[in-house]
């Protein structure tokens, strides 16, 4: 069973009283999913009769089906289909490797899809499907609606399953070349970094940034320059006069 992502409740900020706790305006259920918090906001806006305009029409089932292709971590929205790692490898070489490299290592500045394991606390984190992404559903959802870059939605559902299977294989998340990914098992795939995310906690972890009166005099010891942008020298176009500018 894939774990269910936590539901989250937001407290709408009152326009009168503001406190750091309300700034980000999000109270969260833990990822374990607290039923008590999943019930929605207790603050109801003042009830006033809702006006109906009756402008527009109902979409047909067919119209919704054509566009409604998103997928959730629990598998909701997965289309019927299947594909194996081996099938995905061939498709990847034909459709993806020119940008992402044969092993997902990335060509030039195009995204790296595999590797980076254990790098998240390092100086140079490499955030890939295997090292970073929390859910396999995201990979399917994204690849199916936005890839290949430049010709999105050009492959068949089974081909997308195969491609996702291959990318999971590149990341050692599945290890058998004959593994067949399908709408029946995608939501059961456990991603290594699923537990690597926390809800926005700025209101508590950065509480010190809320102050009554900011300091105005002798706030810190005299400072010295410790870094220069000109030393890095990557600003577009330095002309003869050495001023930063751009390309026409």
């Amino acid at each position, binding site marked *: 069973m894939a774990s269910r992502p936590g539901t989250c409740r937001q407290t709408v900020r009152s326009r009168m009283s*503001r406190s750091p706790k309300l700034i980000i305006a999000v109270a969260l259920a833990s990822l374990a999913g607290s039923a008590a918090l999943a019930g929605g906001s207790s603050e109801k806006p003042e009830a006033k009769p809702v006006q109906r305009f009756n402008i527009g029409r109902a979409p047909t089932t067919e119209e919704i089906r054509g566009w409604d292709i998103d997928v959730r971590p629990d598998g909701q929205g997965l289309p019927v289909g299947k594909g194996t790692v081996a099938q995905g490898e061939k498709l990847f070489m034909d459709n993806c490797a020119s940008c992402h490299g044969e092993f997902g290592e990335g060509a030039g500045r195009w995204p790296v899809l595999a590797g980076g394991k254990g790098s998240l606390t390092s100086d140079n984190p490499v955030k890939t499907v295997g090292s970073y992404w929390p859910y396999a559903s995201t990979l399917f959802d994204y690849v199916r609606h*936005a890839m290949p870059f430049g010709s999105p939605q050009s492959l068949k559902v089974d081909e997308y399953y195969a491609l996702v299977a291959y990318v999971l294989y590149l990341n050692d998340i599945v290890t058998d070349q004959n593994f067949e990914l399908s709408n029946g098992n995608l939501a059961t795939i456990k991603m290594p970094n699923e537990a690597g995310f*926390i809800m926005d906690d700025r209101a508590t972890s950065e509480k010190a940034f809320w102050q009554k009166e900011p300091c105005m005099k002798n706030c810190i010891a005299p400072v010295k320059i410790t*870094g220069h942008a000109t030393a890095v020298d990557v600003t577009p176009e330095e002309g003869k006069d050495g*001023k930063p500018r751009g390309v*026409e």
Partner: protein
Amino acid sequence: MSKDKSLLSASRQSRRGFLTAAGGLAATALASSARAGAGNLANQPPNVPEWTRTLGEGVAVRPYGKPSKFEKDVIRRDVEWLTASRESSVSFTPLHELEGIITPNGLCFERHHGGVADVDPADHRLMIHGLVERPLTLSLDELKRYPRVNRIHFMECAANSGMEWRGAQLNGCQFTHGMIHCVQYTGVSLRTLLEEAGVKTNGKWLLVEGADSASMDRSLPIEKALDDCIIAYKMNGEALYPEQGYPMRLVVPGWQGNLWVKWLRRIKVGDQPWHTREETSKYTDLLPNGKARRFTWSMDAKSVITSPSPQAPIKHGKGFTIVSGLAWSGSGKVRRVDVSLDGGRNWWPARIDGPVLDKALTRFYYEFDWNGEPLLLQSRVQDETGYVQPSKAELRKVRGYNSIYHNNGIQTWHVQANGEVENVEVA
């Protein structure tokens, strides 16, 4: 860690040779000052200038006006090495040349994930479905029949100033702070449409999706959707520009730009978030312990001095000097702005001029007599919640160096005795 360490790999470090070889350089913004210094004496007193002695262009010769040719350097610019392709990239607003709080439509920074969708409004549809009583399909004309609202809001990319996390890197506020714009939107309150569709009691989240080749999709909590979001079809009075989502986009006041889905075509109501690519792989903020924050929606209070700045040096020498800048907060209104001339040791209240609006850019000034000595200029905003813009050091203490997003740290400009200005870090 070396403070000057850039985000770049060594292979990208040596750009100067390549970039200057690229040719086609824009004339520098300094040209205007050169003109002020010398220029063509035949057009200056006591002589009568040529434009006084000849007829100018007639009306409607330019059915859609453009800025003066002498302002040709006030343009969006990009940083080539940032991205792999122009279709999934960003350009920057020339903040250093602008005043007030409204960004001209043609200068609003761009951020696309699959290029600018070329949408025929006659064929565009907005679909609302999922956990609603009455699913809806609307054309642009039908959307315009719903009651309208007008709101001025800033829109800031979550990655604005992201290249500065590891140290001073790009030399100009266009590049360090230019992933932001502020325009007046006209559109329909999202709440109005959600009420029309009738959200079911278990409808807690919206999936919002664009019609571009990236089909950008994000999860939006229902409380925000019912609070102040807008589906906009006009900006600064005219139709949205294609690069800003023509014919319609989502406006999510105070929240990171990525949620402001352009070319908006679909809103699906569900009971939990989708965890799309743009809220898992991207727009999540890595902390030093290897965990990452997700759903960091709101943009915290931030400010920057737009002039003087590296692209807008002081050219008049000593004497009365105007410091001009912008402040904003995703949590509400700007309460105050302070300016420091000595790198944050002492502060002076800035003067706010013009409207102070909720979740909108706010213009401030600090006027002083410059004695010609070097300065370390900073600005610091406090918003109405009491939040005070932190220094970069304070931010790094909590978040480390690899957050990528949400860098709202205080910017330092080093003004040298000759009036040149540089992006620096101080400690």
